[in-house]
């Protein structure tokens, strides 16, 4: 059994490497194909009205003159030495900037996940235990609305209402933990709206199974069945899916952080994209892909473990 698992993990790690290679290569390749020349952009920013010689000098200095593969190769080697270069915009060490920003995003995404799980379980279970059909239908309609409303809109309305009108939260420069709550809520609404119907369907499915009928004939109560039988089984099916959505939330954080002015990873990416800050963009693309791929691997592993258990037993 252990051997099996090792093989699977190995396969997944190879896929991971391939993903990282693909995404970073894509990033480099696209830069090459772009109409905007990073050397010119940088030169313009530094010098104002650079001459052609100055642009060429900068191009050589930054290594943009070398062919694509060599540039990429150099970058990879530097990466393995934990040297990600310096930002073109502000001269900071790329690594430092990312290292300070990433935990913030991670905090927001984790908090969002916690909110989601609480909302999904509470709503799903409450609606399940109520004997009437209407609450279930109402909840489903609310959820369809929930996935149709752009999260950034919720964020802005939230911000404008609570911050500006009621002065409950400050609008800029948030770094404390409390400031994570608002963006987390906004990201969480979408996820919860997506998963609540899935949980409801899974619980419904479990409720109609043979073992449920027999358990009820033994006189076990609905709540006992729900919390000790249905919910664990339904959750097991949803967990891999959910882990993948954490990866998605990381990408969504780009927009939300911008709105709440939280200097997290997403905020960083957007600003660097606007500035065409090449080293930062390459590094950020790498980390984004890494984080997302790791979540996916965790999800796949759990999914695989569940399926194996089913087959054996």
């Amino acid at each position, binding site marked *: 059994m252990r051997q099996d698992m090792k093989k699977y993990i190995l396969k997944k790690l190879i896929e991971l490497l391939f993903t990282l290679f693909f995404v970073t290569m894509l990033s480099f390749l696209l830069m090459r194909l772009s109409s905007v020349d990073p050397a010119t952009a940088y030169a313009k920013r530094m010098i104002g009205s650079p001459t052609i010689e100055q642009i060429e000098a900068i191009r050589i200095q930054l290594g943009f003159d070398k062919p694509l593969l060599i540039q990429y190769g150099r970058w990879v080697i530097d990466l393995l030495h934990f040297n990600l270069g310096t930002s073109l915009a502000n001269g900071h060490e790329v690594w430092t900037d990312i290292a300070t920003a990433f935990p913030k995003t991670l905090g927001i995404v984790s908090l969002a996940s916690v909110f989601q799980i609480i909302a999904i379980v509470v709503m799903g279970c409450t609606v399940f235990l109520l004997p009437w059909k209407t609450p279930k239908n109402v909840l489903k309609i609310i959820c369809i609305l929930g996935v149709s409303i752009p999260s950034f809109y919720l964020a802005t309305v939230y911000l404008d209402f609570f911050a500006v009108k009621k002065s409950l939260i400050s609008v800029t420069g948030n770094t404390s933990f409390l400031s994570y709550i608002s963006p987390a809520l906004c990201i969480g609404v979408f996820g919860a709206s997506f998963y609540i119907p899935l949980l409801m369907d899974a619980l419904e499915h479990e409720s109609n199974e043979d073992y449920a*009928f027999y*358990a009820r*004939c*033994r*006189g*076990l109560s609905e709540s*006992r069945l729900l919390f000790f039988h249905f919910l*664990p*089984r339904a959750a097991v099916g949803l967990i891999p899916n959910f882990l993948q959505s954490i990866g998605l939330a990381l990408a969504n954080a780009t927009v939300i952080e911008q709105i709440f002015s939280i200097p997290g990873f997403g905020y960083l990416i957007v600003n660097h994209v606007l500035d065409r800050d090449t080293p930062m963009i390459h590094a950020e693309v790498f980390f984004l892909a890494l984080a997302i791929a790791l979540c996916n691997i965790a999800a796949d592993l759990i999914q695989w473990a569940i399926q194996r258990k089913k087959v054996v*037993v």
Partner: protein
Amino acid sequence: MLKINQLSVKEKSGRFLLDQVSIEIPSGAIIGLTGHSGSGKTTLLRSIFGMLHTDCQIKDGEIFMDDTDLLCLSRREHRGLCGKKIGFIPQTPMTAFDSRLKIGYQIQETFQRRLQLTKSKAIALAKEKLDLVNLKEKQRVLNAYPGELSGGMLQRVAAAILLGMSPDYILADEPTAALDEENSNLLLEVLRTQMQDKGILFVSHDVGALQKLCNNVYVLGTGKVIEQGNMDQLLTKPQTDWMKQFSSLSRKESQGEWEWEKL
């Protein structure tokens, strides 16, 4: 006495799943119930347990358990009676238990919650009853997952739970359908010897079992009781088409040989 009195159950499309059905199950007796698929046997069982589908409605009738009309009880009260006063033997033992949890946990859960026992007392009771149903490797059974035990063993676990709960009435839904002959006989033996003082409703297509066990057999056809009486009577003097076919088939079967007929 478990008395079903003129019970009518209608589904959303207007069709009557049960039409004025009356059945009596006295304490200490084993009553048989048979009929073609779709005749309403499952609906009857579900009505007694209070677990009809939401599309179905009880239009008429009462279900008296001793002096209480089950249909007048609240959902909670009705559920409270399940297991304790009315027991169930499932048709497909392989899917009757939660495949995620050990058998021991599920038996213990039932005894703990329904009989208000402590965990250790519940386990002790479980072991005692497993003995009675002839499952000797008690610890292995308790530690096993449902998927690791055979159909016959699981069915005996169900019987053991019944013995532990000791309900007054037992509804057995084709309990031997998924079993081979040896296990089938074992289960019927348990029913006969251990549950003598209970009122049992034995739903089955197994002619031999119906003959051996039941004092009285009801035949359901499209929601109505179409025949009733002693199994031997029904077989020798069938009134309805279904019963006629059933008895001719079973006559051939009980001879235990191949029969070739000229068409």
